[in-house]
């Protein structure tokens, strides 16, 4: 076991994957010698050479198009988009190309080796374009896998799994936890399983569901609720597409209540999909409406970031309302 932060865990996973498999290649803006603006690819160029870890011109559609091409040739490109806010120029390549590559060719060609890493989420005074959580746009796209880790051990295990996975993966890294989340990482660990949620804490009164950086928020809210004798079951979804319907349903059947929390705006967010699915399967077991604690339906603001965020206090209030419904 080694203690490290989330960035170090990402870096170590990349290092390990590159050492194991020559087909793993890392690239993106400032990823090369500099090691990335967050240092996630630090040291990789020195170790594996300029041909396997390199800078690209500043073009997101080019980065993902290039990555699609490399993956189609059987390589395992790990492409970095500097901020998730800047993934939209590559939206067409991801949605129309990456996601449909295997299907449209009748499995003659695929880009299953592709992983797109990108820092997401707010809480760092990033304003409109350094704070977004665009996962819901991609969850609507068949053919992609969408993963979000919450801590260093998960980041390492899920990233290794993503690189090995035969499907293209979008890997959203919670940048506000890059250095803040420090934990023990078992370096002998196998890759973590994909599309499996994790029950982080067992409880009996309400199920709390989130992913990535918001898991901290759930923990804090659950502690406050605990002081009021409300027992919270906490689930980390981990994989947003495909997502683990069974684990979530199993929990809600037991607790009879569900709260979903995410940073992204409410309308059209992933919580809507989860709420609809859970009410379909757990209709007779639900004792209160499903609560969604999310970002506001506004662009991500700068000065009023604290007010905007789906924080632990908003979550705590929603827990109390739901339990007392």
């Amino acid at each position, binding site marked *: 076991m080694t203690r490290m932060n989330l960035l170090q865990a990402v870096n170590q996973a990349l290092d390990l994957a590159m050492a194991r498999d020559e087909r793993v*290649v890392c690239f993106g803006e400032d990823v090369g010698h500099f090691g990335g603006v967050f240092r996630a690819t630090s040291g990789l160029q020195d170790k594996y050479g300029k*041909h*396997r870890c*390199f800078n*690209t*011109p500043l*073009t997101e*559609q*080019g*980065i*993902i*198009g*290039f*990555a*699609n*091409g*490399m*993956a*189609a*040739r*059987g*390589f395992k*490109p790990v492409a970095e988009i500097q901020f998730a806010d800047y993934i939209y*120029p590559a939206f*067409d*390549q991801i949605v*129309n*190309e990456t996601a*449909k590559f*295997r*299907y*449209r*060719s*009748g*499995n*003659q*060609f*695929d880009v*299953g080796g592709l992983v797109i890493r990108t820092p997401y989420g707010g809480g760092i005074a990033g304003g409109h374009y350094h704070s977004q959580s665009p996962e819901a746009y991609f969850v609507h796209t*068949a*053919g992609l*896998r969408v993963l979000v880790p919450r801590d260093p051990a998960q980041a390492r295990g899920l990233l290794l799994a993503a690189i090995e996975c*035969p*499907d293209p993966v979008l890997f959203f890294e919670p940048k506000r936890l890059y250095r803040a989340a420090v934990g023990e990482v078992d370096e002998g660990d196998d890759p973590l399983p994909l*599309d499996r949620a994790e029950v982080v804490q067992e409880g009996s009164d309400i199920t709390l569901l989130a992913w990535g950086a918001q898991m901290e928020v759930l923990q804090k809210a659950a502690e406050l609720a605990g002081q009021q004798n409300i027992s919270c079951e906490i689930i980390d979804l981990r994989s947003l597409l*495909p997502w683990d*319907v*069974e684990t979530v349903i199993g929990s809600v059947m037991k607790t009879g209540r569900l709260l979903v929390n995410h940073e992204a705006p409410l309308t059209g967010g992933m919580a809507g999909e989860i709420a609809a699915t859970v009410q379909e399967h757990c209709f007779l077991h639900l004792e209160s409406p499903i609560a969604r604690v999310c970002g506001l339906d506004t662009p991500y603001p700068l000065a009023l970031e604290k007010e905007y965020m789906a924080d632990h206090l908003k979550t705590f209030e929603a827990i109390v309302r739901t339990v007392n419904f």
Partner: protein
Amino acid sequence: MTNPNNAGSGTIHQARFVDPRGPAIATLRLLRDDGRLYADARDPGLDRDTALAMHRSMVFIRLLDERMLAAQRQGRISFYLQSLGEEAEAVASAAALDPADMIMAQYREQGALHYRGFTLEQFMNQLFSNERDLGKGRQMPVHYGSKALNFMTISSPLATQIPQAAGYAYAQRLAGEAALTLCYFGEGAASEGDFHAGLNMAAVLRAPVIFFCRNNGYAISTPASEQFLGDGIASRAAGYGISAIRVDGADALAVYEATRLARARIMDQPQPILIEAISYRLGAHSSSDDPSGYRSREEEEHWRRRDPLARFRLWLQHQGWLDDAEDNRETDRLRQQILAALKQAEPLPKPPLESLISDVYASPPVRLEQQLAALREQVLRYPEHYVATAGRLKK
């Protein structure tokens, strides 16, 4: 390459703007209209078998186009795209490649696929999206692909294959393959951001790729004059630090020669090269388009006289390689074969219901399996409404 940020570009002390209206890039043409080489042209040394194979592929595509456009008009297939007037571009460029080279196409390059060995039955199965289609009937007609022939499956979004070709070629280089990628696209697609992204990335990362632009004058109804103001597409290459050549797209020999030389240069030194072939889209954009609304008969007639098949045929005759009578018999035979293949492919069953959910992922997630199970029940409940699949489902 000069990087102005690192000096070396000199300075001036009176403002002077660079004039974009320099002399236009000249067009490589080897064959005269009468099928003879220009006096100062170098014979590319095309051998007889290759030349005849090129000729047969061009004839094949013309006949297939003719028959299948008619089939679309009869409502037998949903959609079609002809290559009329551009047959030489795809066929002659493919002939200059190695079979190991990857081809990434836009959608008007079926000649390259035929030259590679895609069979008449394979063309038909894709066009009718029946259960034998390599793409499992999922894409619109003319969206061909063949792993065995190194021909990447075509997709509708324009220019997306351009940066992909750069990445594929870069991977070929990393893998130590003695092969490159050739990427086709039209002059309209070259206006997409992916053109810019792909060429710049290929240049900076030294990807062994031939970018082959078919400049046929129109993107659906939009004439090239409303597509760009510069000297076509070839002039852009210099800005990316890429070598370029412009060729007469109706001159199969010139297309062959330009592609052959580009390939040799790239194999010698990994780099991208841009070829712009000038031609004319003689047919409609697609079966859903009628060009009479946006261009004149006279213009079409002018270009009809520059038929790539006719010119190459004359050259073959001058070479003494073409037996006219035998060639005509073969063309008649091919016409019959196409008709027979059409009749064979048309009634074949559609792909099975399960093919709806396979290949979305390497293996279907639970939720997709559940959706298929529900759909299966639905089809069994209303078999007369879902005729393509109902009869094949076991209760």
